[in-house]
Each structure stands twice: as structure tokens, then as C-alpha cells.
């Protein structure tokens, strides 16, 4: 690791000031992504701001929503009884991620900002437009079985690795960011940038921004939610395909609320809007769920190695929607 200056801050304002004062500063929370990439030489901050003392660790419920502090640890959220009851998809996604030790360290804010596991990004040697803009992409004609089929560009086919964010997308979560003038709330679609020609720019965060919380509304649909993760190993492995969904039905038994999100297959946490439009207002059936799955993957662009993800994702979608439709409300 290259040497850096370390400072611990006690307030969000202090973190913002340090970020604005030092253009080469990075914040550290759990450290599980940042220190790993610093050891690889991929991240080289000259200044590290420790934000672990900021008062952002609590999970607070109000009458219609739950606010999760950005420094809540993944395990604290996964094991919280209110989260498990109100947002099963979120508790399941967090429990399916990483290992017991890593979940005790990693934070909600850090999970939102975790970097891709693309080996060409992480090896610090290969051509990678995300790590070294304009250098090219060795993944596009390399070993790319794990890579994305949705949201890709000429410049980048790296997947976003998070499980938690797939659940948040299915729950219409708001990411709460402190910037000059106060808090702003962003949907995941607003927060994440598609790679397009600039894969080095992953979110719309500006210099000095600090993620302070995630907010999720409570609802019947969010209580009827589910996460399914398919991977090469039974545990401690990133997703080949994952599906997060929330579903509710009206009095006439047609679908009144459908949210579907995909992980492991896309460059950002992927909301399947086209599939949701197929589901909205329709009567649940296996044929409907298959049509929704076809719609979700209609835009897929594959390589010979990762083409299997398309059918795998479709079957995972049908399985999740069928399970939710059969579960008691």
C-alpha cells in the first residue's frame, strides 16, 4: 500500500470539509473494498478519511418508512427483526452476500459504492477503461463468463457485484446524500450511471457528497418480497444471476404492484422496467411470468461465454414471481 495521511472525523460536515480540502482523499468505513483495492494498487488515495465515528449507524422506523444509517453494518441490517419482517428481500440479499466476517465490517454506504469484481479491473495490469479511461477493455474478448449482458457498452461489460442494491432497487429505496444545502434523495436509477463511454464514472456523486442513509417505505408489497441468488458455489460467492422482487395484488386478484430487479447480469443494479409493465394490472400465471422474463432480458447482449445467463435469469425470474404469487399475503 502506498503511504497516505490518515484522519478520523466526528461529523458529516467534517467529512465533507476534508473531502473538499483534499482532492486525493477517499473515505473509509468498513474498508473491505477500499483496502483490498489499495493493496492491489488500483486505488491510491493520498488521504484517507475515517468516517466510522459519524453517528450514522442506527435503523429508525417511522409510521410509513424505515431509515437505515449509512454506517449500519451489513450484518446488523440483515439480522434486524423489523427489516426481516418489512423487507424480506433486503434481509435475504444481505445474508447471501460475502461472509460472516465481511458482513460484520461492510456498511450500507460502502456496499452501494463497492467496485466491480472484473479481474481485468482488479489486476492493475490489463487494459481497462474503468481503471484507466481510454486504455481499452480486455474483458470484451477475454474470460468473460461472469460479465454483464444488460447495460453494457463498447467500453465496459463489468457487472455491479452487490446483492443489497438489487433488493434496494426492488424496494424503490431512496439513497440519502448530504451535499451543500442539505439532504437530497435519489432513486437507484438516478444514483448509478451506465458505463456508456465513461465507465470510470459509476455514480452521480459529486466531490464532497456523503451518503448518510437509505430510506425505504413500508408497504404490503414490500412485505411480499423475495431474493434469489444463483452462483457457482453454495456460499461466499458472487452471483451469476440474482433476482429481487416485490409483488402485491388488488381486490380482483390482478397484480397491483410489481417491482423486479436483477443482479449479476448488469453493469448497474438493474430495474427491469419492461417486465414490470408486462406484470402491472395482469392476472398472475406461469405464462405471464415467462413473458415478463422475456421482456426483462429482451435487450441482452451476450458473449459466447456468458450467453447462458439469459436463460438462467429468465428461469430465476419465473421462479421468484411464482413463489411470491403463491405466498400468503
Amino acid at each position, binding site marked *: *500500500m*502506498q*503511504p*497516505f*495521511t*490518515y484522519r*478520523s472525523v466526528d461529523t458529516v460536515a467534517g467529512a465533507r470539509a476534508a473531502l473538499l480540502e483534499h482532492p486525493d482523499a477517499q473515505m*473509509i468505513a*468498513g*474498508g*473491505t473494498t477500499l*483496502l*483490498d483495492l*489499495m*493493496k*492491489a494498487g488500483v486505488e491510491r488515495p493520498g488521504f*484517507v478519511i*475515517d468516517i*466510522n465515528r459519524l453517528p450514522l449507524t442506527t435503523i429508525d422506523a417511522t409510521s410509513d418508512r424505515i431509515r437505515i444509517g449509512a454506517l449500519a453494518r451489513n450484518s446488523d441490517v440483515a*439480522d434486524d427483526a423489523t427489516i426481516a419482517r418489512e423487507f424480506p428481500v433486503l434481509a435475504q440479499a444481505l445474508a447471501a452476500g*460475502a*461472509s*460472516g*466476517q*465481511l458482513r*460484520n*465490517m461492510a456498511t450500507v454506504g460502502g456496499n452501494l459504492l463497492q467496485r466491480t469484481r472484473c479481474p481485468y479491473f482488479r489486476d492493475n495490469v490489463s487494459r481497462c477503461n474503468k481503471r484507466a479511461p481510454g486504455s481499452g477493455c480486455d474483458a470484451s474478448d477475454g474470460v468473460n463468463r461472469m460479465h454483464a449482458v444488460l447495460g453494457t457498452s463498447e467500453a465496459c461489460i463489468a457487472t455491479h457485484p452487490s446483492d443489497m442494491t438489487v433488493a434496494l432497487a426492488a424496494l424503490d429505496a431512496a439513497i440519502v446524500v448530504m451535499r451543500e444545502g442539505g439532504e437530497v434523495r435519489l432513486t437507484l436509477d438516478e444514483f448509478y450511471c451506465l458505463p456508456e463511454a465513461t465507465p470510470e464514472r459509476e455514480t452521480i456523486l459529486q466531490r464532497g457528497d456523503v451518503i448518510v442513509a437509505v430510506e425505504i417505505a413500508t408497504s404490503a408489497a414490500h412485505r411480499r418480497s423475495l431474493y434469489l441468488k444463483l452462483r457457482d458455489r*453454495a*456460499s*461466499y460467492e458472487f452471483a451469476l444471476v440474482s433476482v429481487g422482487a416485490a409483488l402485491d395484488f388488488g381486490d380482483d386478484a390482478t397484480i397491483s404492484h410489481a417491482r423486479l430487479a436483477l443482479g449479476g447480469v448488469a453493469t448497474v443494479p438493474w430495474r427491469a422496467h419492461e417486465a414490470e409493465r408486462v406484470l402491472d394490472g395482469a392476472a398472475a400465471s406461469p405464462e405471464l411470468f415467462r413473458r415478463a422474463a422475456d421482456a426483462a432480458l429482451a435487450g441482452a447482449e451476450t458473449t459466447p461465454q456468458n450467453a447462458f445467463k439469459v436463460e438462467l435469469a429468465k428461469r430465476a425470474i419465473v421462479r421468484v414471481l411464482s413463489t411470491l404469487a403463491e405466498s400468503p399475503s
Partner: protein
Amino acid sequence: MMRFPLRINGSVREVDLVPETTLLDALREHAGLTGTKKGCDRGQCGACTVLINGRRMLSCLTLAVMHGGDEVTTIEGLADEAGLHPLQQAFVEHDAFQCGFCTSGQIMSAVGLLAEGRTLDAATIRERMSGNICRCGAYPNIVDAIASVAERSA
């Protein structure tokens, strides 16, 4: 280089650090506690697992300077004058290791797991211990050792 106090296994140790010193290197190279092992040094193998304020974490992916006020427990802090910690004893009785390199991390992770307070059947132990890799493949006996202590404390 700075003098930095770390509370390890119940006593405060003054160690010489730079900001980039990981907790793992502080323990091994500066505090002389080599029971905590450096396997991958990248958060993938679990050999460096310690308890920080009672919770299992990876000492290779955290900086020592981030833990000035924290209580760090390593494998050296488990046994007392009365004898081995029940998990250490169980690993011996169940032959839960071969080369032994991953063992201190396995045991510290298991201590943390038991403190998390969930019901532990064999499948749950396997899932919740998946962050600790054993290249000798002693997994069946590791699961048995942890299950035997979990049953006694249930």
C-alpha cells in the same frame, strides 16, 4: 512512525505504526502475536479472523489506527489458567485440522459465530463459516467440533 495504543486480549500494548499498517500486521509484526495468520491478505481466506469488540472481523482489511478505542481478541487471548477455550478443546477432540494454518482463524470465527446467538445446525454452521477456507479440507470435522460446543451451550 507513531506510538499507538491497542487494547489486545485485555491489556494495552503500545505499538509503532504508520497509517497503512493493517491490524493484522500490527498484531504479528509489532505486538509479536503471531497466532493470527496471514493467508491471502486480501479478505478471501479468513485466516486472519479476530474479534473486535466481540465481533468476528478480518484483521487484514482494516487499519490498526481505526481501532484505538476497541477491544481486540486474538487466538492468544482465548485460553486461561483453567485451560483451553471450549472451541480449542473441541478442535483437538474432533481432529478438526491437519496443517493448522487456518485453525486460529477458524476458531476465532467460530467464537464469533457462537456469540451471534442463532440456532446452529450443520447446514447453518457450513453457511456461516464459509468465510474460512481450509485447504486441507478438514471441513467435516470443523463442523463437528463447532456443533459439539453449540449443543453444550444451547
